[in-house]
Structures are given as structure tokens and as C-alpha cells.
């Protein structure tokens, strides 16, 4: 084994590392380790001067292995790999010693932390000496994308990808795209009508030559990896031929089954055979299989009779499976509103005049059940109370986070009440008002000037007294309990991840943060990437967002999703398994252990004799190392994580220095 020339570069990370790890002590220790030729330190190793320090030493001092003692390899390993490349060294001759996330930030005692850092550095130096240069390979990419979720996030992402010239599949689980934004009346702070800004985009989806919309469909399975995903989409039976239906609506007039209108938040009814809302895309009717008399009881088929000419109704339709080949995936599964029944003290579900913010949107919408008139039980309310933070910033329901939209939608709704009922008394109970976006503070100020009473305090109880509701709270500015009567109480319910998102997350190997929203690859620098290459996040599936932020993130994720498609190639995994043919006993354990079917036994000529050996398909190998973990003879080895390398690390890391 040739001797290596190792350089060790210790980063202070400002004071992040330096305040708990003795840099000088660590440096002199590193210099004593075998084959170490250079040990240096610098304030910010990842900055250009820091990287230049490494490059210069590689060239001048002929270093061939580098250890960077800094933050987690999950953060800056790619950065330093590039540093090595720019100095002419193979990028895999690098080892990162994580002394920030897993040492200086989690221990306070400098002596203890320095001692641990020494073990970590010793292990990294031991490992780097055993690393071998590796070659990066490329495979071609399927130049199509898939967007999951047809709310405003998915719509924007799909349009942007399609506009870049790539075929895009948009998958929506409901019969129509539009999502929650379609249910909103006006949007803050500009008071644009939600439908007026959303429906043209929905129609763009329908008419875009690069977009194929699969509505009323769900992702059932995902195989493959970035550049070459194989997706199975389950198409639920609509019982109406989407391509034939002209949405004339005659059939619905003959359907006698009334069901809850979910678009109107259950405030009105529609037929089992219905169109979710008149502007729906695809513009086709759908039959609710849970409610349709024929599908439940086997008799009726009235609707089929009236659609004889077009023959768009097919009550024998079955679920279909569609296979899609896509290169990248954007997840835009959105949110569910918080279930107000979980806060029983606020009277939701018990009193008819306690409604959620989303229900309020439908009540005041021109397309809603009251044609835009603010009526509660047929009467105009005289006193309206809004309660903020219902299901947000509330540990008792497990949601510690701020939902980021409720303060502003409440302000907007208060403004709408004032517009419709100039004499109404309007009170808003709040904890803090968060008006952080562009033009938001100004809007909040305007609403305050419209005789809307903001009272700081959490409402503890809503109860009925005569024909009024009483909201009991402590006004925390006055420091005393108060009771405010109301004819209408609106609960500013927060945002939660969509119920089906978790299943999709499992298929795509996405992690979630403690709030159950999908976890981005890095909170600041990679906000739309995920831990799964080629899968990107848009909108509220990643965390609560208002419409401007959602649209911005959707465009960002589209731009990211387009990169591999535009490049046409992606790098395959580098740390793949290799087989030592002579040592292989052809037991086949690795073949069984491989989750990707990347290994098979083949007859090969080894040393002039034909024998069966394990052969790795390096394109399919995803570098997990499962094969190496079960090999008895040590014949199959994951490069970068070989038995020798790991055993050497084990030997070095357990010792005290």
C-alpha cells in the first residue's frame, strides 16, 4: 500500500466550533497522526479563501487525501468534493469529520468536546487513507415531469415545467383541480377575487399542449430514481366519460340523490351525479359511488336514459391503472384545514352560528349557497366575533406552529363583514397579529381603522345565553376576564398536512419535520429539494404558506425539476458495490438482500475456469451496502464503505486520545 499524503483542515465555523473545541490542540493532535503532512485551521473553511487554502496545498504539497474537520457531511460534502476536483484531485479522496452538529453544538465542556473531536478526526484520517478514487457515471433522463396535487401550487409548477418545453403529468385526487384556493372568496391583502385569478390558470392547464391532466387519480406506486421514475397512477372511475361529457348538466336534473356539497363546505347539497363547481377542470360530471342509487342498490340508471345521444355515462366503469415514466416529481399535496371539532369548548358543531374560516369563505362567496349575502340562519348577524389561532400555536392539539395565513384571512373577513354589514359590531380575539408579507401590515392597519375591535386574548369558552352566543376570554392587555356576545363566531382554523400526504411520502421516501409537514433538504439553502433526488416540494405540503409564497415556491420547484430534464443526464450513485470474483462463493445472499434487483449470479471465466459469480448492475445499484452486510466471504464490497474501511474507523473511533 502506497503511503498517502493527507491534509487535515479544521474549520472554526466562526465560533460555532471554536468555542467548544480547542482548535490549536486539535490541530497539533492531527499533525501527529500517521501520513498527515499538513494540518491547518481557518475561520470559515467553506468560504473561497478556505477552499483556496486546500487547493493550494493539494498542488504545492502534493496532497492526495483531504480531511475537512467541520460541519456535517450532509451539508458541505458536495462543496468540498468540488474543491478537490478544481485542484485536480478525485472528489472521493475526501472525508468530512463532523465536529459541529455532532460535537461542538451538543456538548458544552470544552475539554470533553475537544477529546471527542480528536477521536472523530483520528477516525476520519484513518478512513481517508483507505479511500480510493471513484468514477462518476451518467445515465440518460426521461424528459417528462409529474406534479402531484392540483391546487394553486401544483397548477403553477405544472404550467412552469410545461412552458419550459417538457411534457408534464398533473395528478389530482379530486374530480377537479383548483384545490382550496378555489373555495376562497377574496384574497388578502389586495382583495382580488380568488376565482378570477385562479380559473384562467386552470383553463391554461386544460389547454396546454405539454400538460396531461389526470384528475380523480392517485399515485399508487413509485419505483426507480431521479431521471427514471416509474409511477403507477390509479384512476378512479368517474362513471362519466371525461372526453365525451359536455357538462350540459341535464343528467344531474334526473338524479334524485342529494349529497353534501363539499365544495361549499357542506353548507348546501348537490346531486350524487354532479360537477363539483361550474368552473371545474376537467369540465365533466362525476358520480359519487358511495351515494349513487344504482352503484349502491343496483337499480335506477335514470341518468343513462337522458344522455343517450352523447352516451357519456358509463356506470360500469372500472378503476384503471396507468404507468407513467417520469424524470422528476413535484409534490404539491397541499393542506387540510384544522378540524374545529377538536376544540369542543369553542362550540363548533354544537351551535349553528359557530363556523370555520373556510365556511365563512363559502358563506360570503358570490358562488356560495347564499349568493354572497352574509346570512346566518336566514338573518344578518349584528355582532360578529372572530377567534384566531384555532388549531395553531396550540400544544394541546399538537400543533405548535403558526399557520401563517389566519391573521390575514381574519382581517380580510372582518373587512368583508364591514363591507356587507356597515353597522355590525366586529371583534377579533388574537394572541399576536402576524402581518409580515408585502402590503399586509398596511391592510391590517386599514381594517383596524374600520371599527374592528382587536382584543388580545385567547377565548376559553363559547356558550349560549338566550339567543346570543357568549365568548368568554381574558383580555390580556386589560388583565381581566371579559365576555363578548355574538350572533356569529368565526373560528380562524389553521393548516395541517393533507391526510393522504403521508402515504405518498412513504412511496417517495420523504421525511417529515416534527410538525408533520414534508421536510426540505435544507431549511435555508435547499428549501424545495428533498432527501430523495429528483423529488421537489411546492406549497403547503412543506409548511403553511399564503398564496404568494406558494406560487413562488411552486415556480422554484418547477425550475429545480426542470434542471435534470434540461441536462438530459443524471449522475448515478458512485459508491456502488464491487465484486471480487475469486472470493465470491455464489451463495446468492447478496442477490436476495438487494432491494433493487441490481445483483445477479452469472457464469464468468475467472482464472481460466468458468464459475458462477455475483455481478452488480452499477446503474441499478443505489449504494446502500445491504449486499456487503450479508456477504460471508467479503467478496462484495460497497466502495467508500468497505469492510476494511469501516473496521479501521471502528478501531480508531472508540479510543481516547
Amino acid at each position, binding site marked *: 500500500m502506497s503511503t498517502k499524503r493527507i491534509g487535515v483542515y479544521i474549520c472554526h465555523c466562526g465560533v460555532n466550533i471554536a468555542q467548544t473545541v480547542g482548535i490549536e490542540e486539535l490541530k497539533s493532535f492531527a499533525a501527529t497522526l500517521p501520513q498527515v503532512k499538513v494540518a491547518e485551521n481557518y475561520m470559515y473553511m467553506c468560504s473561497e479563501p478556505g477552499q483556496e487554502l486546500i487547493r493550494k496545498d493539494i498542488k504545492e504539497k502534493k496532497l492526495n487525501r483531504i480531511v475537512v474537520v467541520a460541519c456535517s457531511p450532509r451539508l458541505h460534502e458536495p462543496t468540498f468534493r468540488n474543491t478537490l476536483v478544481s485542484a485536480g484531485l478525485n472528489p472521493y479522496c475526501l472525508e468530512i469529520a463532523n465536529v459541529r452538529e455532532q460535537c461542538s453544538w451538543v456538548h458544552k465542556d470544552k475539554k470533553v468536546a475537544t477529546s*471527542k473531536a480528536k477521536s472523530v478526526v483520528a477516525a476520519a484520517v484513518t478512513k481517508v487513507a483507505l479511500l480510493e478514487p471513484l468514477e462518476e457515471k451518467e445515465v440518460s433522463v426521461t424528459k417528462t415531469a409529474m406534479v402531484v396535487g392540483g391546487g394553486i401550487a401544483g397548477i403553477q409548477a405544472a404550467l412552469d415545467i410545461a412552458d419550459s418545453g417538457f411534457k408534464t403529468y398533473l395528478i389530482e385526487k379530486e374530480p377537479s383541480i383548483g384545490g382550496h384556493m378555489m373555495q376562497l372568496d377574496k384574497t388578502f391583502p389586495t382583495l382580488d377575487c380568488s376565482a378570477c385569478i385562479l380559473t384562467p390558470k386552470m383553463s391554461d392547464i386544460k389547454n396546454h399542449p405539454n400538460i396531461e391532466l389526470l384528475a380523480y387519480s392517485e399515485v399508487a406506486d413509485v419505483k426507480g430514481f431521479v431521471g427514471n421514475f416509474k409511477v403507477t397512477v390509479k384512476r378512479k372511475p368517474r362513471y362519466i366519460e371525461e372526453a365525451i361529457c359536455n357538462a350540459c348538466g341535464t343528467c344531474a336534473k334526473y338524479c334524485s340523490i342529494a349529497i353534501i356539497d363539499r365544495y361549499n363546505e357542506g353548507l348546501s347539497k348537490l346531486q350524487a351525479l354532479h360537477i363539483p363547481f361550474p368552473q371545474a377542470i376537467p369540465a365533466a360530471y362525476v358520480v359519487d359511488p358511495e351515494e349513487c342509487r344504482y352503484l349502491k342498490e343496483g337499480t335506477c340508471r335514470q341518468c343513462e336514459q337522458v344522455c343517450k345521444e352523447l352516451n357519456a355515462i358509463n356506470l360500469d366503469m372500472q378503476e384503471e391503472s396507468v404507468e407513467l415514466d417520469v424524470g422528476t416529481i413535484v409534490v404539491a399535496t397541499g393542506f387540510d384545514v384544522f378540524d374545529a371539532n377538536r376544540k369542543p369548548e369553542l362550540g363548533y358543531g354544537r351551535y349553528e352560528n359557530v363556523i370555520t374560516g373556510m365556511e365563512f369563505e363559502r358563506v360570503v362567496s358570490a358562488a356560495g349557497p347564499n349568493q354572497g349575502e352574509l346570512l346566518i340562519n336566514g338573518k344578518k348577524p349584528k355582532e360578529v366575533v372572530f377567534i384566531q389561532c384555532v388549531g395553531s400555536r396550540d400544544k394541546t392539539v399538537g400543533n405548535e406552529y403558526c399557520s401563517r395565513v389566519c391573521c390575514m384571512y381574519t382581517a380580510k373577513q372582518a373587512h368583508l363583514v364591514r363591507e356587507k354589514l356597515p353597522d355590525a359590531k366586529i371583534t377579533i380575539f388574537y394572541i399576536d397579529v402576524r402581518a409580515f408579507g408585502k402590503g399586509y401590515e398596511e391592510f391590517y392597519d386599514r381594517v383596524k381603522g374600520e371599527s374592528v375591535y382587536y382584543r388580545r386574548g385567547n377565548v376559553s369558552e363559547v356558550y349560549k345565553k338566550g339567543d346570543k352566543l357568549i365568548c368568554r376570554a381574558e383580555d390580556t392587555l386589560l388583565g381581566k376576564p371579559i365576555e363578548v356576545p355574538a350572533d356569529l363566531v368565526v373560528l380562524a382554523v389553521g393548516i395541517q398536512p393533507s391526510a393522504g400526504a403521508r402515504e405518498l411520502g412513504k412511496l417517495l421516501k420523504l421525511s417529515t419535520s416534527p410538525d408533520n409537514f414534508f421536510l426540505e433538504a435544507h431549511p435555508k439553502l435547499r428549501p424545495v429539494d428533498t432527501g430523495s433526488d429528483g423529488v421537489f416540494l411546492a406549497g403547503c405540503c412543506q409548511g403553511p404558506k399564503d398564496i404568494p409564497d406558494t406560487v413562488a415556491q411552486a415556480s422554484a420547484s418547477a425550475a429545480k425539476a426542470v434542471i435534470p430534464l434540461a441536462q438530459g443526464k443524471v449522475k448515478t450513485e458512485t459508491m456502488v458495490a464491487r465484486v471480487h470474483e475469486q472470493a465470491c462463493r455464489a451463495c446468492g445472499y447478496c442477490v436476495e438482500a438487494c432491494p433493487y434487483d441490481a445483483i445477479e449470479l452469472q457464469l464468468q471465466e475467472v482464472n481460466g475456469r468458468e464459475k458462477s459469480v455475483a455481478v452488480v448492475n452499477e446503474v441499478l445499484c443505489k449504494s446502500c451496502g445491504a449486499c456487503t452486510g450479508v456477504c460471508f466471504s467479503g467478496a462484495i464490497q460497497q466502495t467508500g464503505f468497505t469492510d476494511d474501511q469501516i473496521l479501521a474507523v471502528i478501531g480508531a473511533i472508540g479510543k481516547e486520545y
Partner: protein
Amino acid sequence: MNFEPTIVAFLCNWCSYAGADLAGTSRFQYPANVRTVRVMCSSRINPAFIVNALLEGADGVLVSGCHPGECHYVSGNYLARRKLVLLRRFLEHLGIHPDRFRMSWVSASEGSKFADVIKEVTEAVRPLGPNQIKREQVWMQQAL
């Protein structure tokens, strides 16, 4: 005597190592007794590594991977569990207290859980005292 055990922790890159990083980013403090070894997947861990770590001076070993059903590599954590549950029984025959070895599932979002697991493992190993095999090795060397 203040005995501070050395714990070697094998962490999978995608869940538990990321969880350990999150513990750091969130500044959750835990005992410095732990030394981590990063592997891409818990299935990479050969049972011999655990025995080896104990022979090389560790007083306890932790293996941590993604929660069942959440493995980045489809099913690697199940494979790891099958192998390592057997190892735990085998340790007794080697004269190693089985409590010196532990498996856990820590996801990328469970920074505080990672800190708790390290505290628990350290406290579970501390009463067992220094690793017997390590002491025997020292005696053997002295005898020779």
C-alpha cells in the same frame, strides 16, 4: 470511580445521522460518550462490526436506522433488524452483556429523540462498568 463508557453508534445516513445533525442544529445536549460511524443504510452493518467495536474498546454499541416502513432503501432496516436481533442473543454466548448493544429507530426529524436515545444508552451501559472483553485483553497482554 467515575466511569465514562464509550458508545459507538452506527447511524444510517438518511434518518438517524440526519436526526443526530438535527439534534446539533437544535442544540439538544447529550453525553459526549457517543462516537458516530456513518453508513448509508443500517443494512450495511455487519454483525461483526458490533462485536469488533466491543473488542476494540467500546463499552456499548448503538445501531440506529429509519423507522420501519420508512427506509430510504425500501427495506434495508428490516434486513438490519433481522440480523441484529439474532446478534443480541449471540452476545451472551460471547460473554458480553446484551444490554451493551441496542437498536433504535430515529428519523431525520427526531433530533430530541436522538439526544434521548444517547442519554438512555449511556445510562444503561454505565452500571455495567468497563467492557469485560477489553479488560481481559489487557490482562492477556500483561500475562504475555
